[in-house]
């Protein structure tokens, strides 16, 4: 899997794509693969405050629940409503099926995140276990 280079990645397997002061957040293809068939995505409401490194929702498969960790702090401006009825979209296209859009509070936080190449290396190591 080639990871898009237009965004950054967390070690908890989220991606974040920045556009000026706002950003879009989702989970990576590796994450959707290890979870299996996703049946439910729980996202925060518009207006919710995210804190970098803290959970802001969950993704569920039939037999597992995974927390969503915020790659950066910010306020939720939009939530992907399609996921409520079609959670399978995350399996089909993880990098296209975003979960929330936020206004960034502190863009500097992004400096600590992984590039596509680094994330790919990180995932290869994790999978090797």
């Amino acid at each position: 899997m080639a990871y898009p280079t237009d965004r950054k990645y967390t070690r908890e397997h989220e991606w974040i794509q920045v556009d000026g002061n706002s950003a879009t957040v989702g989970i990576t293809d590796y994450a959707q693969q290890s979870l299996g068939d996703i049946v439910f995505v729980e996202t925060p409401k518009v207006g919710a405050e995210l804190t970098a490194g803290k959970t802001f929702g969950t993704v569920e498969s039939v037999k597992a629940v995974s927390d969503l960790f915020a790659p950066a702090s910010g306020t939720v401006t939009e939530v992907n409503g399609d996921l409520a009825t079609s959670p399978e979209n995350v399996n089909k296209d993880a990098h296209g099926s975003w979960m929330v859009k936020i206004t960034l509070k502190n863009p500097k936080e992004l400096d600590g995140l992984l590039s596509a190449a680094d994330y790919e290396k990180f995932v290869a190591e994790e999978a090797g276990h």
Partner: protein
Amino acid sequence: MRYLPKSPSDREAMLKAIGLRSVDDLFAPIPAEYRLTRDLRIPRQMAESEIVDFFRQRSRENGDGYTSFLGAGAYFHYRPVIIDSLISRGEFLTAYTPYQAEISQGTLQSIFEFQSMICELTGMEVANASMYDGSTAAAEAVMMAVRLTGRRQVVVARSLHPEYREVLATYATHQGMPLSVAPFGADGRIDLKELEAAITPETACVLIQSPNFFGTIEDVEAIAEVAHKHGAMLVVSIAEAVSLGIIEPPRQADVIAMEAQSFGVPLGFGGPYCGVIATREKYVRQMPGRLVGQTVDKQGKRGFVLTLATREQHIRREKATSNICTNQALVALMVNIFMTVYGKVGLKELAKQNLAKTAYAASQFAKHGNVLFSHTPRFNEFVVATSEDPYAINGRLLGHKIVGGLPLRKFYPEFGNAALWCCTELTTRSAIDTAVGLVAESERSVRSAKEEVEEVAR
């Protein structure tokens, strides 16, 4: 030992195969100082005939042959014979939780039918596969409302079963859930003004019971309106399931916590019973307990599976909706068969008989004593206030092999000499007449004694 399928030579052969000399070697991991070197001090091994005899004797010491007027959360209804024939089938009795769907379709489909019928009867959209009992179901339903609203305060009706209130208090203690009580008025129902006063912007839910502990039917619609006006949810506990045959279900509730014991479950000195939670579809992810859902197999054939399991403890661990694991499956099957036997028409007729017996009993008692809340609609229980101590009355009734109503003083000191009486379809007119006669006799003698005293005083 007759339950163990091995001969001494089998054991020898197995030990040899494992490469051990004696059974003691198997227990070598246990530090020697803790190993028990004596027999347990428990009764000796008994023959089946002795065991049966032991329990028959206990049965004789346990109210066998008495006619009872007790209800209060545990009701004596007729149990169709086929319930025990069917639940005694080993395939139901000795099966585990249906995690392996392919070889558990019997249990799964029956639970799906159970969930469906509970929905029909309660007017709710989803119901779970069962909870321990009505009291814990009520506590869990309240915690569900706390999660859904993000509020923590809870208003509890004083007309809710006192032991249910105690259980809720235990559950709430360490959850930071302050409880306040909504009193009942002169009509035996929740006082709406007092209720509204008890609700705060922090109130997660109002918990009531209908028919309530005194058998009177709450004005659920009005209570729901008050609760919802303040953004609180309404949780309704139903302790007498047979009432659903003739009493409008609390459709305005957000969550219903039910005790289904009345549906074919033996009194059994208090358990096992069958709790169940029913609610709206939109709240299902915060509902505790197992759920069965319909799906298809790889050939497209209809089948059933446990579903939405991510709410549960074995997956979500400390973040689960509840720690409940084992529920009351076999008891839920009894309930399921009972609901199927009576069905759409039978449940109504059954409930009408309960209503008729109770109306008759209450009218007879009213001739000699004071029947409280008599202008409020009730189902199959009513409160009789007497001049004489109900414990004394019951002592006398016991001599006639009758168990009288439950003295209320223990739970409601303000009632003084009052007792909660219950009639079901199994209560005969002659039993009612005898009980009323005995109570009336004492009422007369108490009155005449009082008059004598007054005369002397004059």
